[in-house]
């Protein structure tokens, strides 16, 4: 059976027993000596939802209803990540920056759900930056001014011909990875899309951070 036929049958399946129950109900509640005041009308079949009548309700995106609750990184690690967001992806050209887009908060969630190697890279990278900052400037990375932070970050930046090319040095690799992730999380955010639309770009295919999303195509393939 084609899947679409199967789905249609599922939607129709409850209708038959329910209709039967509805038509039987009056007879069970009427005793034989009670004469109805008026001639019973032909029972009106109660309308049931057909597959095309189910209303489409307006739902609200989760990002509009609550604030993310970061939980994965330690307070010190998260402060370093926020500092990186402010430095690497600041608000420019009327676009939101990483902090406006809550990119660090999103990455806290993403990394918490990631395989071990990605988690280890992030924890190592955030701890290393903080440690280097304390050694070099006697304060945490999140408290550095832009000039001080640049003295740590600049030697760690590398040219990468492809986005998937990462340097072997773990700290340089972390900086490349977190830079990519902060940019993507920012440019794929609701805030970025709103800013783009405000500047006159309309939501079509090719609009930054958009595309044709393929739903899970059958029940097994849920990822």
């Amino acid at each position: 059976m084609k899947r679409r036929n199967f789905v249609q049958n599922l939607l129709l399946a409850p209708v038959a027993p329910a209709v039967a129950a509805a038509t039987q109900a009056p007879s069970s509640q009427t005793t034989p000596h009670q004469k109805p005041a008026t001639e019973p009308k032909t029972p009106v079949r109660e309308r049931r939802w057909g597959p095309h009548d189910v209303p489409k309700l307006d739902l609200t995106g989760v990002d509009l209803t609550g604030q993310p609750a970061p939980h994965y990184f330690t307070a010190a690690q998260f402060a370093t990540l926020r500092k990186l967001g402010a430095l690497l992806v600041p608000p420019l050209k009327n676009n939101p920056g990483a902090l406006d887009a809550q990119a660090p908060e999103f990455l806290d969630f993403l990394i918490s759900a990631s395989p071990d190697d990605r988690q280890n890279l992030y924890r190592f990278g955030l701890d290393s930056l903080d440690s280097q900052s304390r050694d070099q400037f006697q304060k945490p990375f999140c408290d550095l001014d832009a000039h001080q932070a640049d003295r740590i970050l600049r030697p760690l930046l590398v040219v990468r011909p492809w986005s998937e090319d990462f340097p072997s040095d773990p700290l340089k690799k972390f900086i490349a990875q977190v830079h990519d992730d902060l940019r993507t999380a920012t440019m794929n955010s609701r805030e970025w899309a709103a800013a783009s639309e405000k500047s006159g770009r309309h939501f079509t295919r090719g609009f930054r951070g958009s595309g044709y999303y393929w739903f899970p195509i059958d029940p097994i393939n849920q990822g």
Partner: protein
Amino acid sequence: MPVKTYDVLIVGSGHSGGMAANILTSKGISCLMLNAGPEADYEKDRALKHAYELPYRGFDKPGRLPHVFQANEFNANQWVDEKEVPYTCPSDAPYNWVRVRLLGGRSLFWARQSFRLSNLEFKAAEIDGTGDSWPISLEDLAPFYSRVEQIFRVTGRKEGWPQFPDGDFVEITYPPDTDSIKRFTEIANKQGVGVSKWRSALGKDGLASSINLLLPDALATGKLDIVENAIVREISVDKNTGLANGAHFVDRHSGREMHVKTRVVVLAAGCLESTRLLLNSKIGNSSGVMGHYLVDQMYGVSVVASVPEARDGKASPGLMGGNAFIPRFRNLNKNDKRNFIKGYCVGIGSGSSASPNFFPLYGEELQAKLDSYANSCVSGSIFGERVARYENHVRIDSEVTDRWGIPVLHIEARDSDNERNLCKDAADTIEEWFHEAGWEIICKTDRVNPPGYSIHEVGTCRMGDDPKKSVLNKWCQSHDVKNIFVVDGASFVTCGWQNPTMTILSLSMRASEYLAEQMRTNAV
């Protein structure tokens, strides 16, 4: 209920399976096509979305498809789930097996680059002085290439170069080259390197798939039934004749085991799945070479330059934009002595912007650089030919099974110095061209993505005249089991630098016509 009977079982529904169904049904032969995955509904199964509407903001669920670099959260559900159908490889030799099991297979999503192999590839041993040649030549396949090109409506510019055989192209008018492309062409020509245009299948309504170009006609004959979500577990064999007599398959959802009887089995599941099925069925491998000579093309070598006069908003339409294509130009004859055999093509694109990862900068400084270099870039990247080597192979990993208990493949493929030398030559050559053009080199790499990345894997059931050294004969027919044909890329002897789709389609067409004639005369 009476069960229908079929002459031919076709496993797989991509380009090769679609072509087999198209040809065989046109000859009045009844076919059953089993496809391992479901039919996609383009209206129902996809929707235009913002990345922020997706659960992982466009990143996709971490760790879901570690070997599919092409995957993102938008398209993640197209690909075969690596947990559902895993494979194994050595920890020091990753292999990117990129699979689609939807009806139509990878024909739904291919890049539509459409080339013929030349006799440099068919007769490779003669030019390379090593390795093997195909048992067929370009002349054998040319009539089939022509018919395929007409069905797929291939565009291209005829050049008359032996290493880049012309085809039956749809004539189109190319826009005039921009000044940057003219400049590049001039430099390459000065070195005796021919510059052409990409050759691409127009298909129909933007799709060049088996599901719109091949299967509708086959279904219209009334001779084809297609079953979705039917995973073939094993080919069954008649103990008395040694011939295949059908296949055991399992329903993807319920796990219900089924068997179908047919006179002939045509494998078109993609080279590695077809080989996996044969290996799991323990047939057709008297030569011992089944699974060996796995090969695909090298992607990743790239050079990007910026045209200085196009920077800071001056990338005019007359200066930037357009593309060029250089077919293989290395080792065209025996006198071209280099530290590698084989060759590569180069694709040139003009008018792109720089990627943020090109610059060791961040924040405002990075943005200023990106703004300055916007639309000023010219990029050159290659498709390089790997050497088909015995040691690059697949075998059954009996300790790991897929969701249905079918043993999976172990894939082992490594590059050699030949590949590394070829890639270094390519990166150095493109850099030299760009440098001579007066452009600023922004980045250069001769690093190659892991084998499999090109999604052009071929081989593992190579064809040949000698049954002791090959799995299939020149008609894609098993030497050992005469009623089994493998019509996907498994029969390839060399991979060339070319996108293999036109060759796969032509081989499938040729094999299917041969099969139809063999069936008519009861030779099969």
